């Protein structure tokens, strides 16, 4: 009962959170110096000049730039509740459509990267933690090394080695399965190192716990202990970390998409910020925020299931 109520409350406040996220973006973008109509005119002409009031009048009229800020804001928020994220200033089509087409490739990329990162991290940790000095230091060195790799350096190097030199993967693979491999690895390798470092700590602690010793004395195999007891206990911070990792991944996706010329929300975002396409920027933040909020609810649920201690809280 209480858990359901908690989640219901959370779901309701989530709507507030999402609108707040969009609002913050809306006002942050307004704080950018310069005139939106002027930017649009320059964007349409490739110039960097200041246009006259007359020349800008049609654009101001069309997008309501002359309206008081509060009117623009209310229009925007009202639109949100009708599922209308506005019209892109530059692409002249609904923002829902601009984002819609780009969301899936980005989600595929980040989702796959998160899975691959966990597989790599857990695999290496399980195999090397408390397995003698050599294997352990091999594992930790690998983690320290990969965690320190800059995303885009990994991307550029992977691209040059595997696509340009060895020609194993396409260079401009778009959203094809083969073309997705290198972008996923670009995001997953550094993340796996980072996750590995954290899960290793958890594993080591758990392996020292009395119940592990008990399990061993009961005759459980080393692998059995590792998988059944240790993994289960290490999963708690792992869930929290996954939430964090998603944020890092979306940021990393901007870079991976840029290097590999892959369509996605990251590319759209950078362009939109650069061209001050306010409805698109707000729309993307809104959608990403919504995804996170849902992910957060799931994390809460998962937490309550995995760790009974937190249920009451």
């Amino acid at each position, binding site marked *: 009962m209480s858990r359901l109520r908690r989640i219901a409350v959370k779901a309701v406040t989530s709507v507030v*959170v999402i609108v707040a996220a969009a609002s913050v973006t809306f006002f942050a973008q307004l704080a950018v110096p310069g005139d939106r109509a002027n930017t649009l005119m320059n964007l349409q002409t490739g110039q960097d000049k200041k246009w006259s009031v007359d020349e800008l009048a049609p654009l101001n009229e069309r997008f309501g730039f002359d309206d008081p800020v509060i009117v623009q804001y209310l229009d925007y928020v009202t639109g949100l509740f009708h599922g209308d994220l506005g019209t892109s200033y530059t692409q002249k089509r609904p923002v829902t459509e601009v984002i819609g087409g780009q969301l899936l490739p980005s989600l595929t990329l980040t989702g796959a990267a998160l899975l691959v990162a966990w597989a790599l991290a857990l695999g290496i940790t399980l195999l090397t933690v408390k397995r003698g000095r050599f294997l352990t230091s091999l594992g*930790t060195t690998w983690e320290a090394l990969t965690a320190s790799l800059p995303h885009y350096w990994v991307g550029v190097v992977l691209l040059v080695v595997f696509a340009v030199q060895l020609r194993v993967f396409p260079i401009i693979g778009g959203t094809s399965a083969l073309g997705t491999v290198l972008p996923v690895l670009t995001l997953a390798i550094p993340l796996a190192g980072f996750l590995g470092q954290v899960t290793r700590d958890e594993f080591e602690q758990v392996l020292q716990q009395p119940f592990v010793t008990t399990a061993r004395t009961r005759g459980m195999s080393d692998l059995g202990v590792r998988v059944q007891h240790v993994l289960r206990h290490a999963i708690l911070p792992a869930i929290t970390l996954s939430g964090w990792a998603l*944020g890092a991944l979306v940021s990393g996706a901007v870079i991976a998409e840029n290097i590999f010329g892959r369509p996605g929300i990251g590319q759209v975002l950078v362009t939109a910020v650069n061209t001050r396409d306010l409805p698109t920027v707000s729309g993307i933040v809104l959608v990403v*925020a919504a995804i996170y909020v849902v992910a957060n609810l799931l994390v809460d649920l998962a937490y309550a299931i995995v760790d009974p201690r937190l249920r009451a809280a």
Partner: protein
Amino acid sequence: MSTLTVTRAVHLPKVGTVLSLLVVAFVVAAALVPGLLVDGSPTAIDLKSTLEAPSWAHPFGTDDAGRDLFTRVVHGARESLGIGLGATALAFVIAIGLGFTAALAGRVVDAAITRVLEVAFAFPALLLALLVIAVRGPSLATSIAAVGIGSAPGYARMIRGQVLAVRQAGFIEAAAALGHGWFTVIRRHLFPNAMRPLVAVATLGVGQSIVWASALSFLGLGVAPPSSEWGALLDAGRLHITTSWWLEILPGVVIVLVAISVTSLGRTLQNRLGGAAR
């Protein structure tokens, strides 16, 4: 509770620690007194010796303006390390404030801050950075602010979680029962216990911040030229990777080396701290 106990195991062999110390010492020296390590100016051009491969005279080779890459890397240490330390410090200041307030100031405040953090967390750090840069224009200070603000929400959530977890442990109540004031409890028990596991996160954060700053440079939004901030070097070397590999690979190796060293030292430190606390 199990998340509190800090591991005593030393991961890296002593050799690793010594090497890490050497690397960090070198970089700190480069940041403070670059003149000790290299002679020339990082911006000195020599159009007669452009794009030369690494040699005795130019250990890291030269770039397309004939500038010595090693000199540039050494002089870039100040900005890169500065961004790494500055951004992490900024992030932790913000995160500690928010995290502790959320965990300790009661249910309503906690709910509010948690929601705000969710909003902030919902912004991918890079978008937050992009917005900061769009408003302020690219510069060293903007890079620090952008990376710092961008990574703060994540830390704040971790800190809040840690503080809550520490609070759950009985000894805080015990300390309170013994008549210690709240501030004392926070300072002597809550803070050290909640923060200790985050030492690793913080040191990793320095490495991550250097990496993030280089990402901004990669998007053309970093420190203004002719700065030789390491990310800017990577960005400049990108076009050359198939023709003059050293311009892209060597600065990358430096970033990775420094990040590993900082991290491993942080972990060693963490282990020592953990041991001392017992």
